C-alpha cells in the first residue's frame, strides 16, 4: 500500500520539477499533465479501498467502491485537458512569434516588444 503511494508521490514530484526547472514550454505542459494524472490516480486508488464492486447498482451489488472520488475525477480530468489544450495553443502562438520553445529565449525576445 505504501509503495503505491510513494510511486504516485514520485510521479507528482517529477511532474512538478519539470514545470519549475525545464525550459522547454511544451515539457512544462507535459509536467502539468503528469501532476494531474498523479492526483487522479491517487483519488481513485484510495477511493477503491473500501469496496470491491463497481458503483453501478445492479442486482447482487453489496460492497461497492466509493463513487464520489470517481465523479470528482471525471471533472478534474476534463478540466486538466482543457487547461493543457489552451496552454498548448498559447505555446504555438509563442513559437510563431519568436521561433523558439525555450522560455528564457521567448522572454528575452518578447521583452523588447512593449
Amino acid at each position, binding site marked *: *500500500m*505504501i509503495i503505491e*503511494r*510513494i510511486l*504516485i*508521490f514520485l510521479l*507528482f*514530484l517529477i511532474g*512538478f*520539477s519539470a514545470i*519549475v*526547472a525545464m525550459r522547454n514550454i511544451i515539457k512544462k505542459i507535459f509536467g502539468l499533465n503528469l501532476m494531474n494524472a498523479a492526483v487522479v490516480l*491517487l483519488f481513485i486508488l*484510495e*477511493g477503491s*479501498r*473500501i*469496496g470491491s464492486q*463497481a*458503483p*453501478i*447498482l*445492479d442486482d447482487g*451489488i453489496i460492497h*461497492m*467502491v*466509493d*463513487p*464520489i472520488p*470517481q*465523479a*470528482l475525477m*471525471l*471533472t478534474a480530468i*476534463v*478540466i486538466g485537458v*482543457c*487547461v493543457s*489544450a*489552451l496552454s*498548448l*495553443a*498559447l505555446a*504555438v*502562438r509563442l513559437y*510563431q512569434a519568436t521561433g523558439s520553445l525555450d522560455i528564457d529565449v521567448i522572454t528575452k525576445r518578447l521583452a523588447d516588444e512593449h
Partner: protein
Amino acid sequence: MKALTHSKIILTILILGLAILPVILSDAPWPVQARDYLFGNAKADTGADNTVSAIYLGYRAMDTLGETLVLLVSITGTMSILINLGRHKMDEEAVKFSLEPEKLPRHSLRTNLIEVVASKLGPIVLLFGFYVMLYGHISPGGGFQGGVILASGIVFLALGTELKTKLTNTIVLSRIESLSFLFLMLASISGVFFESGFFGNPVKTVQNLSPNFIILLNIIIGLKVGTSIAVMCIAMMGGSHDH
C-alpha cells in the same frame, strides 16, 4: 546567478515535497458515509443505476456545468488563436491534411488505407458514441464520454470521405454546439419555474423514479462536447479557416 536559480528550484521542490508527503502517504481510513448513503438512496433520488452518473449529473450537476464552461472557454480561446495562425501564414504542412479533395497532393498523408478504414469506421464509432451517451445512467459512460467518442466519429468521417457531408461542415457543427449550449442553460434554468430551483429536476414531482432529467442532460452535454471538440479537431487538421 545561475547557482542562485538552481538552489531556488531545489529548495522549492524540497519544501513542496515535504508539504505534500503527509497528505499523499496518509493512512487514515477512507470515509464510508457517502458511499453508504448512495448505496441506499441514489436510485430513489435520481433514478439512475450508475451512481457515478447520479452524482455527476444529479447531486453535483453544478460541477458538471462548470466543467462544460471550462471546455467552452478553452475551445473558444484555442480556436481564436488557431484562426490568427491561419491569418498569419498558410501552413504548408496543414495543407497536406486538408479536407478539400482538389487540394490533395498525391503523396499526401491521406492514403487509401486511412480513407477506407476511417470512412467505414466513422458511422460505427458514431453509433457507439450515441450508445455511450444514451445509456450513461445505466452503464458506465455518459454525456461527456459519449460526446468525445462522437467527436472522434465525426473526425473519422471528415478524414475518410471526400464528399462534404453536413456532419463534417464546421458551420453546421458549431450551430449544433451553440444550440445545445442554449438548451443546457434552458434545461438548468427550467427548474426555477417549476419550484425545484436552479438545476433542479423540473419533472421530479410527476415521476419520481425516472432518470429522464439525467438522460436529457446526457444528450445535451454529449452533443455540445462532441460538436465542439470535432470543430476544434477539424480546424487543427487545417480543414476550415473560414470559421
